[in-house]
């Protein structure tokens, strides 16, 4: 007697979501979303600055930080999902059950995507409602930016799972995922154009379309950067890059997780 693989994926996903809710990670990121939205809405009037007059300009402020939110989602809801079964020894209870490792990985990935998408939806929803209230209009570009953010999220989750299947420590997997997307990819994406190589294949460079869909980033890329230093591939290429990272990350994670032995 064994449940079907699809039913098992649903079971694993539902228990993983429960873990994120009860482990207070979801609460933590929701507080962060509330803080970001609060600052974007509260600071301009407090400092006597007028809000942007068009919905695209208004939401682009939010979109600029959507990438960071996606990365935090990957770090909190994906990076330790596989490695923890080995490190925390929960695999000794879970793996002797009649469930294939790929089913476990797929269930966990589904849970990570659902939770990350929910956070992102809430963030964009808050931005859209605020834009409607302040500018009295909305555009399809906001929806497009949201879809790009979702596509970027799949890439981050895929890579996070690959890292989680490779490393032996939850802390190392979490730290590497965070710094890969906030530092390493950004550095590589910033240096490649100097060597006349377009960094279209770097996911953080491709993530520029999230804000670009709304007319460009509202906040500069940071010290040492500038408008001329950032390269953003065209939307189609960016989406293909995101999906390629998502699929390659997930497939490799499944293969590695299947091969990995549970021995103390």
């Amino acid at each position, binding site marked *: *007697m*064994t*449940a*079907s693989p699809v*039913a*098992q994926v649903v*079971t*694993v996903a539902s*228990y993983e979501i*429960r*873990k994120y809710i*009860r*482990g207070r990670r979801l609460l933590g990121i929701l507080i962060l979303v509330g803080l970001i939205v609060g600052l974007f809405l509260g600071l301009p009037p407090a400092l006597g600055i007028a809000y942007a007059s068009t919905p695209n300009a208004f939401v682009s402020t939010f979109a600029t930080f959507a990438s960071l939110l996606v990365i935090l989602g990957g770090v909190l809801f994906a990076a330790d999902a596989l490695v923890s079964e080995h490190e*925390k*020894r*929960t*695999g*000794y*209870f*879970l*793996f*002797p*059950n*009649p*469930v*294939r490792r790929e089913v476990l990985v797929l269930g966990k990935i589904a849970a990570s995507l659902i939770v990350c998408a929910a956070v992102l939806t809430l963030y964009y929803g808050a931005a859209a409602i605020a834009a409607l209230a302040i500018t009295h209009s909305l555009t399809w570009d906001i929806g497009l930016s949201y879809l790009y953010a979702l596509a970027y999220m799949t890439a981050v989750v895929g890579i996070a799972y690959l890292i989680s299947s490779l490393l032996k420590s939850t802390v190392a997997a979490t730290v590497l995922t965070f710094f890969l997307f906030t530092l390493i990819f950004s550095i590589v994406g910033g240096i490649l154009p100097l060597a006349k190589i377009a960094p279209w294949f770097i996911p953080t460079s491709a993530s520029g379309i999230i804000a670009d869909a709304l007319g460009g980033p509202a906040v500069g890329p940071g010290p040492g950067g500038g408008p001329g230093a950032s390269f953003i591939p065209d939307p189609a290429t960016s989406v293909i890059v995101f999906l390629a990272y998502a699929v390659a990350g997930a497939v490799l994670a499944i293969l590695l997780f299947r091969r990995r*032995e*549970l*021995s*103390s």
Partner: protein
Amino acid sequence: MQSSRMESVTGEFPVHLEGLGKEYGHFTALKSLDLTVPSGTSLGFLGPNGAGKSTTIKIMTNLIRPSRGRATLFGIDVRQEPTRALARIGAVIETPEFYGYLSPLETLAYVGRLRGMSSSELERRSEAVLKEVKLTDWADHRIQEFSKGMKQRLAIAQALLHEPELLILDEPTSGLDPRGMAEVRDVIKSLKDQGRTIFMSSHLLGEVQEVCDDVALLNHGELLIHGSVRDLSRGADTSTFQTTFLSSPTPQDLEALATVPGIVEIKDGGDSTIDLRISGGEEAQARVLEAMVSRGLKVTTYRPLGSSLEQLYLDRIQESDRL
């Protein structure tokens, strides 16, 4: 009897290990293990730490891959078809950790749903197994509050949930206090009485003697003995007897004793006590006592140290260590 004949025809023994071996780099954890456990048998898988017991069990439950050979459960190769092979078993491997954010009831629901149990069946079985391992009062508490012993009992509960035909238990009383150990042994004995097949690893001989019908002794990844507890106990004719005298025997007394037929070794324990290793069963033991009394030695106690099976166990382990 009919069941055994069926097994021999179909080859569907609950456990059948064939030339099973495992290497970790240059270290050989398991050499070439051949072992079969017929239906309804409770086998104690004995051996000191590092003998290869856990390695065998991990291969049987698909946690690690064998370097050679194969493990089949009910005739199904664990490597080829893990989900089918694991569907009919319940396992407790080492002291597993559980998800701290779940309660025992939720944990049982998780594994039950993975196994395709219906809600009503889950409710009925969860209640029964939690009662069996005495965790009913903790059914709704988060596991993060649990002690090691409570987690071990929950591990047994999840292994019993789907009423498996074969139970694979890796040191199931590890981490439990004496009362907890006795309770777990009682659970295993009652499962044995229900006719379940049990494969239980342990380094505690007394535990195996109390719970199991058959015993397999492993050391350095090699099977040293396999047989029924009763037959091996009968067959082992060497025992150690602790003997205490009213006053210490003289060196001449000890020299004379050494010539008595049946005495293999004499160890002076001090305080008028000696340990006599006697070969030849009960007759030899009586003869030795007679010889001591006839020599005028005033024997105050003459009692066996451990069982004959324990002696056999220690002898075979020492022998295998020397090789």
